[in-house]
């Protein structure tokens, strides 16, 4: 292909995606309601014609021919001479899918998808050659020697795999203009802030002059001091205003960018309809899909994440929920079942529900299965109410075919559905009425590209919680948290609020007594959870990054973001935290006072290792990356003991020990040197500097370290 046409091909690809989506939507609508055929078929022809023209003008003859054959096959329907049978719709969808399968090849300039296009073209031609629309069963199989496009699972021929890097979105000029305006405003703000920075330099110079004058014994006149103060006040006002304006502008740009990512929920109708059709064919059942709320706009990423789970739910409904047509008729239900996708938006939350009018869950069978599989004890099985039994279907233990068969209900892979919802910081639940059907409810945030997060701190580590899910923040003392049978709760507004402690995640003992704690009251699915942490840092805009695959099994982590400092911060899922069993760890006593240990080591792993060991033993730990930082911390915080490496930048462990000994405030502070330098001379040097103990990293033993520290603290006491 002419290289000059390359950019045009990429534009064509975007147009083609859109055209294929529209054709799928028209086919779905016509299949759903024959009354819509006259209007929808015209739209289909418009899109196919446009596809054909563009493809031909770019020399993409195979795609142009496919569009032409599609038009030919559907011409009898357009003329009202033939109905759109399911078989004809299938062939049309195969053609549309084949064109979609060619897209990655167009992007990559390869032949990928050419075979699919050729096969679909042959199929359409064969259909025309037969001179009639194929009978329902006639178009099912592939002709000998040709690949069967319908073989295997339906998703195998669903959306082509496209490299995310090559994905693009269509943006209106108005949106781009809006974005440009937002950027112009931000540029204006930057220039104002630069002016403020210049003013700050001048102010610092003024303060410096006054300081030098005072230091040299000169009298400071009130005039210059007052002028300086006025200037600083003015700067403060301007900076506060600019910060507000900056926040507004960032929000506006963010909103514009989010809007660019939005797509209508109705886009789900086509893949779900196809999954339903395939499942019906496979099982001999009859059902139709009804989409309500297709106009609701949702984040493209949310849509992509939910598409698989929703397809799964639709298949489940057909496979395990919907009865055979003759059974339905025998019990007074229409032979053709109804599966609904209902989409609803409430503020920034999206509610999706997949309902069916099938047999519903046999709760007693599910209870028995849970007991037999050991998911619950006999006593627990008896105690669970109906909703709790249904919730067990989301456990992975229920996710085998054998169990589902025995259950005669739903439950295949529902854990996967809940996982997907949790990954999006949402939740999944199910309701069911025996004989009348089931409904799976998914609740997810409207967008996930960028998050406002509440950043909190626990044991020196920072975490984020999605702001949208945090309702309020409460301060309390650890003593106000109480055990309520199986869980820890906090009485909030006369209601017991279940508690999840971040310290449990860190395997650290919970604080007790009068220690102050911060409780973030967060929505967790249908309920609420109180997330206990040491400190609230504040609200931050978080740019989420893809979570490494190996962390995707950690339910309590819903995302990870990079802070402007380059530091990573994990976003925790309140839903998963609420589900996490709260270990009944011993709380640290409030009296005697929790012992504080300062760790100085330039190795992150050693700091981390020692921190874990000492926190698990009940110590409060602070860390420093070298001796200099340790001295600064020891200058204004009270510590009971210092553990220091010997080789460190700036101030090494020996110098640190000597300087601590030289200060009256820290002269008696026990210092444990912990080093890989462990010769007799090294140990001698340590003792000479004033170390209380010297431990070798090569012979590290967690128990010994704790014993040595405990012994030294006792000696000191």
């Amino acid at each position, binding site marked *: 292909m002419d290289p000059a046409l390359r950019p045009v091909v990429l534009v064509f690809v975007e147009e083609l995606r859109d055209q294929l989506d529209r054709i799928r939507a028209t086919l779905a609508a016509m299949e759903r309601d024959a009354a819509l055929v006259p209007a929808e078929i015209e739209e289909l022809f418009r899109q196919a014609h446009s596809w054909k023209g563009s493809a031909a003008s770019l020399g993409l003859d195979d795609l142009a021919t496919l569009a032409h054959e599609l038009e030919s096959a559907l011409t009898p329907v357009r003329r009202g001479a033939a109905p759109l049978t399911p078989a004809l719709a299938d062939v049309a969808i195969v053609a549309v899918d084949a064109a979609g399968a060619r897209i990655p090849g167009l992007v990559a300039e390869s032949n990928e998808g050419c075979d699919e296009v050729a096969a679909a073209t042959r199929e359409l031609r064969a259909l025309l050659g037969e001179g009639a629309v194929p009978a329902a069963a006639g178009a099912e199989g592939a002709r000998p020697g040709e690949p069967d496009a319908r073989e295997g699972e339906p998703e195998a021929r669903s959306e082509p795999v496209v490299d995310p890097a090559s994905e693009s979105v269509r943006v209106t000029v108005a949106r781009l203009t809006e974005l440009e305006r937002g950027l112009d405003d931000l540029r204006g703000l930057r220039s104002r802030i630069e002016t403020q920075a210049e003013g700050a330099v001048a102010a610092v110079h003024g303060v410096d002059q006054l300081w030098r004058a005072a230091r040299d014994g000169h009298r400071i006149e009130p005039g210059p001091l007052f002028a300086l103060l006025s200037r600083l006040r003015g700067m403060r006002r301007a900076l506060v205003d600019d910060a507000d304006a900056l926040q507004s502008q960032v929000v506006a740009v963010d909103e514009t960018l989010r809007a660019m990512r939005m797509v209508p929920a109705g886009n789900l109708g086509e893949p779900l309809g196809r999954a339903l059709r395939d499942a019906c064919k496979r099982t001999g059942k009859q059902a139709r899909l009804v989409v309500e709320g297709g106009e609701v706009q949702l984040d493209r990423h949310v849509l992509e994440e939910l598409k698989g789970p929703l397809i799964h739910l639709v298949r489940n409904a057909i496979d395990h929920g919907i009865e055979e047509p003759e059974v339905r008729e025998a019990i007074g239900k229409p032979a053709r079942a109804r599966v609904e996708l209902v989409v609803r938006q409430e503020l920034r939350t999206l509610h999706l529900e997949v309902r069916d009018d099938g047999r519903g869950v046999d709760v007693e069978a599910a209870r028995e299965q849970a007991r037999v599989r050991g998911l619950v004890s006999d006593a627990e099985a008896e105690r669970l109410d109906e909703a709790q039994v249904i919730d067990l279907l989301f456990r992975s233990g229920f996710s085998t075919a054998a169990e589902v068969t025995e259950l005669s209900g739903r439950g295949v892979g529902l854990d996967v559905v809940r996982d997907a919802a949790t990954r999006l910081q949402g939740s999944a639940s199910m309701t069911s009425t025996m004989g009348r059907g089931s409904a799976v409810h998914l609740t997810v945030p409207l967008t996930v590209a960028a998050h406002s997060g509440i950043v909190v701190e626990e044991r020196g580590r920072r975490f984020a919680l999605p702001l949208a899910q945090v309702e309020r923040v409460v301060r309390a003392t650890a003593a106000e948290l109480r055990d309520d049978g199986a869980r820890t709760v906090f009485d909030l507004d006369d209601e017991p609020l279940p508690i999840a402690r971040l310290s449990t*995640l860190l395997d650290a003992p919970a604080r007790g007594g009068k220690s102050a704690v911060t409780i973030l009251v967060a929505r967790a699915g249908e309920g609420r959870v109180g997330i206990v942490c040491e400190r609230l840092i504040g609200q931050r805009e978080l740019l989420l990054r893809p979570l490494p695959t190996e962390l995707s099994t950690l339910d309590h982590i819903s995302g990870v973001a990079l802070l402007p400092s380059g530091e990573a911060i*994990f976003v925790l899922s309140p839903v998963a935290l609420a589900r996490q069993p709260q270990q009944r760890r011993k709380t640290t006593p409030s009296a005697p006072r929790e012992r504080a240990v300062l760790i100085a080591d330039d190795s992150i792993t050693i700091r981390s290792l020692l921190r874990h060991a000492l926190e698990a033993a009940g110590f409060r730990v602070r860390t420093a990356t070298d001796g200099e930082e340790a001295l600064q911390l020891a200058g204004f915080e009270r510590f009971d003991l210092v553990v220091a490496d010997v080789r460190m930048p700036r101030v090494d462990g020996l110098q640190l020990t000597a300087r601590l000994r030289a200060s009256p405030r820290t002269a008696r502070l026990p210092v444990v040197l912990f080093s*890989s330098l462990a010769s007799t001379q090294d140990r001698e040097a340590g003792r000479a500097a004033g170390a209380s103990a010297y431990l070798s990293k090569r012979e590290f033993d967690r128990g010994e370290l704790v014993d040595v520290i405990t012994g030294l603290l006792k000696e000191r006491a």
Partner: protein
Amino acid sequence: MRSTRPLSGARDVARILEERARALAVVEEAAPSSARTVAAFVMGGHELAVPIEALSRAVDLAVVTEIPGGPEHLLGVIVVDNRLVSLLDVPAFLALPTHGVGDITAALVVQHGGRQIALAAERLLRIAEVAFVDEAAAPRLLDVAALFADTRLSGRRS
């Protein structure tokens, strides 16, 4: 807080490690057919190696963010080229016996099938052609594909 940065700006890792290889490695006259070019490193007292073709880059380790509630074999995540990569403690992952603790100073980022993971290292040794005739002899060659396929790293629930 300092950021994780490449081993040395524009210098590429292969050249640096090759320089070390020239200084440290004993190059065999005629490598047997089982010989492979590997990047060797030390972790937990074990000498380990990864095939050079699986190596993406080496990085100095400055900032590691711990994974709350994460498994012991994952020491945290690091930022490499603006991407988050998990830091794997290979001896812990393979349940190899370790003695004492060492300073983890660097990581070798390996890739397979579009995924990356960083292998924590106390010391980077060399790039060398090594004949793997005795499985028990150092360095122990890591099968990177098998590493990524392990259910503990594959993202699949075991």
